[in-house]
């Protein structure tokens, strides 16, 4: 945890020095590091930029000299000197509002009693925060609040965490002269429609903090104050229940509420927490910092931590509320084994499970060769656990058959960015968006898949940044409250590279490129070759329009905007990578950023939005068959020798199998053993038929997971996994930020994941000795140059660190490629557009693209076991009204969805979000079988599957009793496998 300094007065201890440690560096006040994240300063910092001490202004508050940045409110200035003026409607996550009038003060030379929250501090100001007159005014105000507030403090859910109660105490309220007989709101009805929190208007003081949080923090604008005067009340939507409104249940309003009006149901049930532990969310790649609020070893609430550098105090419905899966009854907490998958499971000790697994693996290797087994690491597990699994495969299995689920999401990012910039990672921090002038969002849906960052984007858009959305669907960012894309380039799935080439073509064609930065920073030879390539007419928007569907004029306008509007930042997701040309597209994006000098400073860059919490980390940790930790090729003698020495083994210099190779070899019958940690390839990987066939062919499938997931139904050994609450470790988010994950409860299965891997490795005859994950990190740091200075001690001090973190950059690297690219000169790669082989035909006339939605996460193993299913109980097929009408489909109809790979059935949702000819679904529910439909097409460079383009046919199902053949089989198989558990 961050140390709380007693004084944040900038002329004493709270100063940090920017720069690289030279003595001459100016003393700087940095609002992001020189404050205590656990204190509420009442109003936000006027700027998040550091201010040189010389530019601070000085004022006197109650006789104390206080120095603050210009624009700081008197309320905040006082709080910085630890003079805590009473307040109700003010909180430092929201702009000052000035409605409660509790924070009024006296300022020398000014008339009246101004509210300190809305009064900016000025040089030489003399402020008195307390005297008899002010005290009386404050008491009178509190008296009025309390005259319409229940006096049930002792039995109130907010008892102990109520600012109204605190303020009544602070102002010394002793009686209420008005009585309680008059009109009041004490009988106002509760709204308990949201599964996670209750809205009790009888306790509301109408401070508007919830309304403002929904607007300023979350950007959804679902709340308002309806009516006026005495009738004023908080209203969701048009005086509706929260669940019937646009509320996305991010929890910002609950966080902002100073009373019990908006309270977590878990707190109402269980009471206030007695201690808290700061940890990192295990959902998406934003990597939000949370306080796990605890009672004993029970998590009663997760609250976003203001000190979190990725989320800055915000959260979404998943991280904030959907943690109940960790203690769900479906958790399997005992190791189990069986000889074949048509036998019941036998519960055994860890020792027995390890030796069973080890003897099978060894037997397989004896019979089928060393390369007949392998492992898959998880992007949901910690860096340390992932590192151990790849180490086990390389050292104990003796081959390089290790891959990770990043294969199926962001492997093209690693490849494409390495080839152009020289490092397989995003270039920016999330904070960087605050300096962005134009953002281009390609194939990403941040408001659903990376909601906390989506909110930060929307905030910047409301400040005036421009927006280009490139997506086949009308995602929420295209148009919504106070957000409207300047250009929505609605391309056809599969034509990404044509689009990005056309963008570059326009920039060259119209002379908008940044010649100086190209000459100075890029490999000029590669640029000249690329320029000749891209200038060809076939890349012009007028040509590409014919197959991408993007009108040439619109594309030209978007290209001009991106190239000329100032700081341009590209944010992209799986809509870029999960294509047959995923790697080309990533390189095309990198080209575009280099071309326009949008790399190497705040506000610009290439930002892959990572799907899972530790996609970046699992890739960093050497999960790919050809790369050791730190993206270094296994065939490199120097690096390999270093690892051989440290691990005391001989390593195979040849790259091993990728997931796709493993599955193909398993179908062929030459690959027989697989250790899968925390991934569900049976649900998440494309072409389920093929995956299932492969899994059935294995002689030893070892699954380590918290639930009996779809893959585990094909397993011979089940090793209980532990949730993020049950272990220590680190996750690395999309901005390369290594954040600590802290154990708040004992593992339900007795062992943390890293301990299970150690046990298995020992049984295989390769003993690894670690007493704590910190020792694993120490080993990683000693072997990986980009992690050199990372340690648990440093993470505890800093909160989090962004790699590269080494001797040159001991505090980490927020922005990459500042002086020069990691590879030296930026490399322009040729990106010829090659249409996917997946084409619409008479039989399959539509294109299916897949994605996710806000309330569910990935395969849904976690979120389906929470109340999040109240929002999304099943996967549906989104279809445009024209296509629906042609087929006689209305919303709610059962439809069949078929591709050349398979067919399944879903319910339809008719919506204009889609363009005609394109349909969309999610893969959060296994029985939907979205991946029955997807094919085994994949990226040319990395084998990342082409989830985003499948030719399909959609038809209305007339006899709703009929399930698809696969769904019937799936249901029967699931029933059978669940029965094998009951023994």
């Amino acid at each position, binding site marked *: 945890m961050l140390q709380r300094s007693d004084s944040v007065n900038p002329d004493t201890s709270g100063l940090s020095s920017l720069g690289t440690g030279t003595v001459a560096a100016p003393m700087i006040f940095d609002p992001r590091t020189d404050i205590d994240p656990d204190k509420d300063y009442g109003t936000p910092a006027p700027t998040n930029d550091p201010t040189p001490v010389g530019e601070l202004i000085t004022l006197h508050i109650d006789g104390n000299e206080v120095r603050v940045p210009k624009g700081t409110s008197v309320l905040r200035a006082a709080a910085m000197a630890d003079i805590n003026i009473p307040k109700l409607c003010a909180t430092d996550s929201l702009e000052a509002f000035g409605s409660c009038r509790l924070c009024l003060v006296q300022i020398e030379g000014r008339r009246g009693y101004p509210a300190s929250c809305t009064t900016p501090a000025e040089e030489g100001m003399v402020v008195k925060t307390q005297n008899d007159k002010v005290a009386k005014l404050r008491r009178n105000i509190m008296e009025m609040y309390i005259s319409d507030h229940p006096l049930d403090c002792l039995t109130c859910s907010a008892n102990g965490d109520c600012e109204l109660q605190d303020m009544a105490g602070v102002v010394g309220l002793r009686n209420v002269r008005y009585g309680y007989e008059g009109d009041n709101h004490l009988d106002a009805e509760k709204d308990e429609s949201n599964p996670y929190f209750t809205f009790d208007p009888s306790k509301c003081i109408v401070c508007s903090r919830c309304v403002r949080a929904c607007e300023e923090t979350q950007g959804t604008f679902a709340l*308002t104050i*309806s009516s006026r005067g005495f*009738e004023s009340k908080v209203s969701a*939507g048009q005086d509706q229940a929260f669940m019937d*409104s646009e509320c996305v249940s991010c929890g910002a309003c609950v966080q902002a509420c100073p009373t019990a009006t908006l309270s977590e149901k878990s707190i109402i049930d269980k009471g206030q927490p007695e201690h808290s532990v700061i940890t990192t969310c295990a959902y998406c790649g934003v990597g939000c910092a949370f306080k796990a609020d605890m009672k004993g070893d029970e998590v009663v609430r997760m609250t976003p931590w203001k000190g979190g550098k990725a989320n800055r105090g915000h959260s979404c419905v998943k991280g904030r509320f959907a943690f109940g899966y960790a203690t769900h009854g479906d958790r399997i907490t005992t190791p189990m084994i069986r000889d074949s998958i048509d036998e019941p499971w036998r519960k055994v000790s860890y020792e027995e499970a390890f030796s069973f697994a080890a003897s099978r693996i060894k037997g397989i290797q004896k019979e089928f060769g060393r390369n007949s087994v392998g492992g898959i690491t998880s992007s949901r597990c910690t860096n340390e656990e992932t590192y151990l699994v790849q180490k086990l495969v390389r050292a104990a299995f003796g081959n390089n058959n290790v891959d990770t689920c990043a294969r199926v999401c962001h492997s093209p990012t690693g490849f494409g960015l390495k080839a152009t910039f020289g490092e397989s990672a995003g270039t920016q921090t999330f904070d960087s968006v605050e300096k962005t002038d134009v953002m281009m969002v390609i194939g990403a849906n941040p408001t659903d898949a990376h909601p906390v960052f989506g909110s930060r984007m929307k905030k910047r858009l409301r400040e005036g940044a421009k927006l280009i959305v490139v997506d086949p669907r009308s995602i929420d960012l295209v*148009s919504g*409250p106070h*957000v409207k894309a300047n250009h929505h380039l609605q391309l056809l799935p599969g034509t990404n590279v044509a689009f990005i080439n056309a963008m570059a073509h326009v920039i060259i064609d119209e002379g908008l490129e940044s010649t100086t930065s190209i000459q100075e920073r890029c490999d000029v030879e590669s640029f000249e070759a690329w320029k000749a390539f891209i200038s060809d007419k076939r890349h012009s928007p007028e040509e590409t329009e014919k197959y991408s569907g993007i009108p040439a004029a619109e594309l030209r306008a978007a290209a001009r905007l991106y190239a000329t509007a100032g700081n341009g930042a590209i944010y992209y997701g799986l809509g870029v990578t999960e294509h047959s040309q995923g790697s080309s597209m990533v390189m095309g994006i990198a080209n575009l950023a280099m071309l326009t000098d949008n790399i190497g400073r705040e506000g610009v860059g290439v930002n892959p939005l990572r799907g899972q919490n530790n996609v970046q980390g699992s890739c960093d940790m050497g999960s790919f068959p050809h790369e050791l930790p730190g993206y270094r090729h296994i065939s490199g003698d120097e690096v390999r020798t270093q690892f051989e020495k440290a691990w005391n083994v001989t390593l195979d210099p040849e790259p091993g199998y990728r997931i796709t190779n493993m599955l193909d070899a398993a179908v062929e019958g030459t690959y027989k053993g697989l250790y899968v940690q925390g991934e569900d390839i049976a649900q998440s990987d494309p072409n389920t038929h093929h995956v299932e066939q492969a899994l059935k062919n294995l002689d030893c499938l070892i699954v380590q997971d918290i639930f009996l997931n779809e893959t585990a139904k094909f397993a011979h050994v089940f090793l209980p996994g532990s949730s993020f609450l049950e272990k220590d470790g680190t996750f690395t988010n999309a901005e390369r930020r290594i954040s600590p994950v802290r154990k708040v409860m004992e593992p339900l299965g007795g062992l943390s994941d890293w301990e299970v891997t150690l046990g298995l490795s020992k049984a295989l005859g390769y003993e690894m000795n670690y007493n704590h994950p910190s020792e694993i990190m120490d080993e990683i740091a000693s072997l990986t140059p980009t992690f050199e200075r990372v340690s648990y001690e440093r993470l505890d001090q800093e909160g989090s660190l962004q790699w590269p973190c080494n001797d040159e950059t001991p505090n980490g690297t927020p922005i990459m490629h500042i002086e020069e690219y990691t590879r030296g000169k930026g490399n322009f790669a040729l990106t010829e557009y090659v249409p996917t082989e997946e084409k619409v035909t008479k039989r399959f006339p539509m294109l299916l693209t897949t994605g996710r939605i806000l309330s569910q996460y990935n395969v849904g193993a976690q979120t389906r076991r929470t109340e999040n299913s109240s929002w999304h109980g099943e996967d549906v097929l989104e279809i445009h009204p024209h296509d629906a009408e042609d087929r006689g489909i209305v919303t709610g109809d059962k439809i069949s969805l078929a591709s050349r790979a398979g067919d399944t059935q879903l319910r339809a949702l008719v919506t204009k979000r889609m363009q005609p000819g394109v349909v969309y679904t999610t893969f959060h529910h296994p029985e939907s079988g979205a991946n029955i439909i997807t094919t085994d097409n994949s990226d040319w460079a990395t084998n990342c599957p082409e989830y985003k383009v499948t030719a399909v046919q959609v038809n209305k199902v007339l006899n709703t009793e009929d399930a698809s053949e696969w769904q019937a089989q799936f249901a029967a198989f699931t029933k059978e496998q669940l029965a094998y558990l009951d023994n």
Partner: protein
Amino acid sequence: MSSSSPNATPSKAVAVNAAHLSAITSHIDNNAQKPGPLLPILHDIQNDIGYIPDAAISEISKRLNLSRAEVHGVVSFYHHFSTKPRGRHIIEVCCAESCQALGGRDLQKHAKDKLGLDWYQTSKDGEITLEPVYCLGNCACSPAVRVGKQILGRVDNDDFDELIEELTTVPVTLMEGR
């Protein structure tokens, strides 16, 4: 909570007919380019179809890139806007200081008794809606009442009855030669 405000209770969704919907769309189109277009749009809709249907709020919010809640906040703030269909005649009785001083309270009570309506209620036959208003700028001739666009001064109880008589009497024309 008391329910004297027109929008205090959640309004049940009133189905909007196609003619209304196209009127709403055209009022939005006509004003969307103005700076601060929300109030002009709301006025035009209410003047045209008599109230602001729920569906109008979704349409406006989509077109102006606002949220439904924001538009609802504005509509519910101004008592002038109604979210429910109102009578053919809107009678507004002034309740501000000057009118109160000159017998306005008695007139208010009389109006409610005469019509059997409380504020913001509409007679069963859909003819008359009774609303309070706070100052019509006609203080010199208090107490004042407004019907549609017409402002009446020095209204006493008998004048009020006469007014109601007039509003509810439909002249019948006899056809000659029958």
